[in-house]
């Protein structure tokens, strides 16, 4: 017995020692002071490159844009700490003249770079001049197209004279995910060609400075600046973590294991299955929603995008028929295992958009009628997400909210009720014909649709496309998915698709202005078939009515009620015309471990977007507090 006990103790001690040794090998930083975050960019090829402005040169969400960079304004995709809009380096919102040809910026005083140099208007002017004089920087083109001249009447004021009226010029300096970051003049002025300068180590305006990095690009560590009070986020308090590490934890399965081992505090994104595993097995893990669907809905709208240069989709009756064949509940189950936030209108159901657009348009949607050629129908179904929640409750029980308001916040409002009969009538109205169980186009050709999907690289979207193709096929359309893993960008940009699962709608989320994506939908920018289409009108859809809305938005201010009204006009037009079939928000399963840190943003405390590759993560740092303080 004594030998047995001794052996047991020895084996247990050995096991505990080896595990403790293994834990100590994760990092030599004090764990209780270190926040470890996934960098979804993965391994950075040229890790020693920190010159963000040079196109395609180095990592961006290695902590560089979240902790080190800063610019004039931020707009949060959720509520923000003091409203979604934040004057960051600027002391106040942008001031335009009446015809939007001049923008004046007042800068904050008392801010310093991480090397102690003061931040002044000269840094802003230098940033603008560098972009005017160099091609090949990220923001060279927008600056060269817009800025006639930038001047600084005093050290904390900058005046931009624009080449042509632009009521949204400030968006170049406004972070949604990123923006034109301000360059340190005292570093770059003597650095020579800005395209060839590595900016290593970076000099920061944000509250952290670079500590170390792996030359192979697996990790980057940042240390809180001693003078963090001289940075723009100091208004919201001292950042909690002394150290922040950004790492490439590998494929989704490994991210889950890393968090179960408490070696990864924030997972950027996992597959729904990974999220469910963590919800079951890791009591310390939290997500945006306390229960199902857990995920944070990004202000991005995955949709079924038709190629409008393919004449088979030129008739809105055809597009509507295809929409009425989709069972959104089945798509939600197939793609996100039910954890999707759906949207019937072409605006993501996230941030402030439900209150600005989805709810105000609800009664209009309920009354919206569609002429099928053999009658009219009201296709909108307000009960669809309630039914989805009910369906999920059978297996997930209390994880599903029961309050209708909470259900709509989590799963979205309504969508189109599947109606194959009306779809058939619409196709017939458009001149299509069904023979022998197969639909034929007015030209007598089989109605054939190939839906391009990205494959394993984006399984959620791929599963949505597969489910839609299956529904169309069952109806007699020759529909299949085509996997374009690695070539999706090329095919989307050049219009090499019938339909594609992607997104052409991306908004600010926390602000109702839609010009962020909508301006590029103007018909003047549509490329010839086969030529690359500029982002984001991948559907190559043109409409005089839409052009008129876009032109009106250009002429009204960013913060005006008119802009919101015009946004609602856009949403209505999209419903009538159905140029894309909106599906759902891009739900991101960001999972946060509370073993070492608390204060993460959640749906109950939505002070910022939790997805940690967004630059507004800097606000999260001010709210995080250690669970094991010294």
């Amino acid at each position, binding site marked *: 017995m004594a030998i047995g006990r001794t052996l047991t103790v020895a084996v247990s001690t050995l096991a505990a020692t080896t595990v403790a040794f293994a834990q100590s090998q994760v*990092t030599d930083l004090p764990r209780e002071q270190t926040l470890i975050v996934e960098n979804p960019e993965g391994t950075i090829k040229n890790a020693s490159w920190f010159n963000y402005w040079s*196109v395609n040169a180095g990592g961006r969400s290695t902590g560089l844009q979240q902790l080190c960079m800063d610019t004039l304004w931020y707009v949060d995709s959720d509520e923000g700490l003091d409203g979604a809009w934040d004057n960051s380096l600027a002391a106040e919102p942008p001031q335009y003249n009446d015809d939007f040809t001049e923008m004046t910026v007042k800068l904050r005083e008392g801010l310093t770079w991480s090397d102690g140099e003061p931040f002044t208007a000269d840094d802003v002017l230098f940033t603008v001049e560098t972009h005017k004089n160099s091609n090949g920087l*990220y923001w060279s083109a927008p600056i060269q197209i817009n800025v006639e001249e930038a001047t600084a009447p005093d050290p904390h004021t900058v005046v931009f004279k624009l080449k042509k009226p632009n009521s949204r010029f400030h968006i170049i300096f406004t972070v949604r*995910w990123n923006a034109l970051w301000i360059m340190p003049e005292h570093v770059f002025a003597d650095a020579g060609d800005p395209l060839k300068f590595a900016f290593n180590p970076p000099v920061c305006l944000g509250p952290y400075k670079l500590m170390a990095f792996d030359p192979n690009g697996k990790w980057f560590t940042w240390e809180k600046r001693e003078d963090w009070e001289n940075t723009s986020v100091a208004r919201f308090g001292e950042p909690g973590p002394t150290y922040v590490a950004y790492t490439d*934890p590998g494929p989704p399965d490994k991210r889950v294991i890393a968090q179960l081992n408490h070696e990864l505090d924030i997972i950027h994104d996992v597959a729904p299955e990974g999220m469910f595993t963590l919800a079951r097995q890791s009591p310390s893990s939290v997500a945006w929603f306390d229960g199902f669907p857990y995920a944070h809905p990004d202000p991005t709208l995955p949709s079924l995008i038709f190629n409008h240069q393919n004449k088979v989709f030129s008739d809105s009756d055809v597009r509507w028929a295809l929409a009425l064949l989709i069972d959104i509940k089945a798509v939600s189950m197939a793609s996100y295992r039910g954890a999707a936030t759906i949207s019937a209108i072409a605006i993501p159901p996230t941030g402030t958009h439900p209150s600005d657009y989805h709810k105000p348009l609800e009664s209009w949607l309920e009354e919206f009628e569609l002429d099928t050629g053999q009658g009219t129908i009201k296709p909108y179904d307000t009960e669809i997400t309630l039914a989805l929640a009910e369906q999920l409750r059978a297996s997930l029980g209390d994880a599903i909210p029961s309050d209708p308001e909470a259900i709509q916040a989590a799963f979205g409002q309504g969508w189109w009720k599947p109606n194959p009969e009306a779809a058939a009538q619409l196709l017939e109205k458009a001149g299509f014909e069904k023979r022998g169980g197969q639909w034929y186009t007015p030209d007598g050709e089989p109605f054939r649709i190939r839906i391009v999907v990205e494959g394993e690289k984006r399984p959620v979207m791929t599963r949505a496309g597969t489910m839609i193709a299956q529904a169309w096929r069952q109806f007699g359309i020759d529909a299949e998915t085509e996997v374009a893993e*690695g070539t999706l960008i090329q095919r989307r940009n*050049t219009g090499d698709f019938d339909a594609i699962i992607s997104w052409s709608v991306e908004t600010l989320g926390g602000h109702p202005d839609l010009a962020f994506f909508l301006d590029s939908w103007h018909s003047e920018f549509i490329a010839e078939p086969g030529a690359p289409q500029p982002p984001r009108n991948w559907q190559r859809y043109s409409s005089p009515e839409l052009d008129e809305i876009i032109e009106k938005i250009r002429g009204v201010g960013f913060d005006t009620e008119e802009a919101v009204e015009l946004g609602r006009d856009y949403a209505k037009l999209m419903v009538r015309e159905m140029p894309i079939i909106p599906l759902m928000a891009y739900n991101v399963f960001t999972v946060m471990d509370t073993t070492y840190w608390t204060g993460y943003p959640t749906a109950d405390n939505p002070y910022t977007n939790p997805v940690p590759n967004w630059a507004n993560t800097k606000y999260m740092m001010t709210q995080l507090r250690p669970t094991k303080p010294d």
Partner: protein
Amino acid sequence: MHGYGQYILKRLGQFVLVVFVGISITFFVTHLTPIDPVETTISAAAAFGSTSPEAIAMLRETLRELYGTEGNVIQQYVTFWGRILQGDFGPSLSAFPTPVSELIARALPWTIGLLVTATIIAWVLGNILGGLAGYYRSNVLLKMSGVLAMGLHPIPYYIVAFVLLILFAYVWPIFPLSGGYRMNLAPRWDATFILSVLYHSILPALSLILVGLGSWFMGMRALVSNIVTEDYVQYAELGGVNRRRILSRYVMRNALVPQMTGLAMSLGAIFNGAIITEEVFGYPGIGSLLVDAVHAGDYSLVLGITTISIVSVAAAVLIIDLAYPLLDPRVKVA
């Protein structure tokens, strides 16, 4: 020796031809890919910001100029060879303007360190055990090792890798989940760093050894099983020559020649990297660099890596070809 000189010249000619054809094929294949590095860059640049279509058009023009993707494929092919002959692979298109050679130089030591070590360990162990198993066919322990090797061999590598990872990085987490060394540790030649590198390489190396060992084992056992039936072995045994001496001098030595070829080929192929190993274990190296380059349409980097790989494999074969006549007098060089 005159015959051997001619043999060397012939093999060198073949080497040059193989390298030229291999690199040329790679060049045209990479340039036929539908992935356009300029469009990939533009998508990355415009993915999250509000970028006007006019700005995108301007950026596209600038990038075509910067990346040197102007001109037709033949013009680019001629420029490419001009650079290659000077040892310059040009700048990486997905990590512009960092030279391709710098990215490869950063990743290659990890790949070589891991794969050379694991390959040689697997080769030595596999051959010794396989040789013993083929010669001492009635030994129970060696029979069991044969069963184990045959059992492990058909299991797909990624399964072995994942099982090791789950067992030793999750169930009993005594090894790290990923990385080449501890986070926040500065790479330098001191005991802390070297020990951290060795510690992080144990699981990936073990996975490669376990899977690699099986094929060397079975190959050697089959070779030895054939050789032991040869007359000269039978004669030596009947003549009462010590069995250990027969095994080491008569059997293993003859069986090693084809195994040496296999080793050379494996070592040459190391420059392709071990993509699955690097992905599963999050280990740095040239395999994941190649995968990233393919996805980004970075044909400069793809060409750089494949050129090194082609030259390495061809050189390994050349060395073996040149060494054969010296190792095995039965090989005729004329």
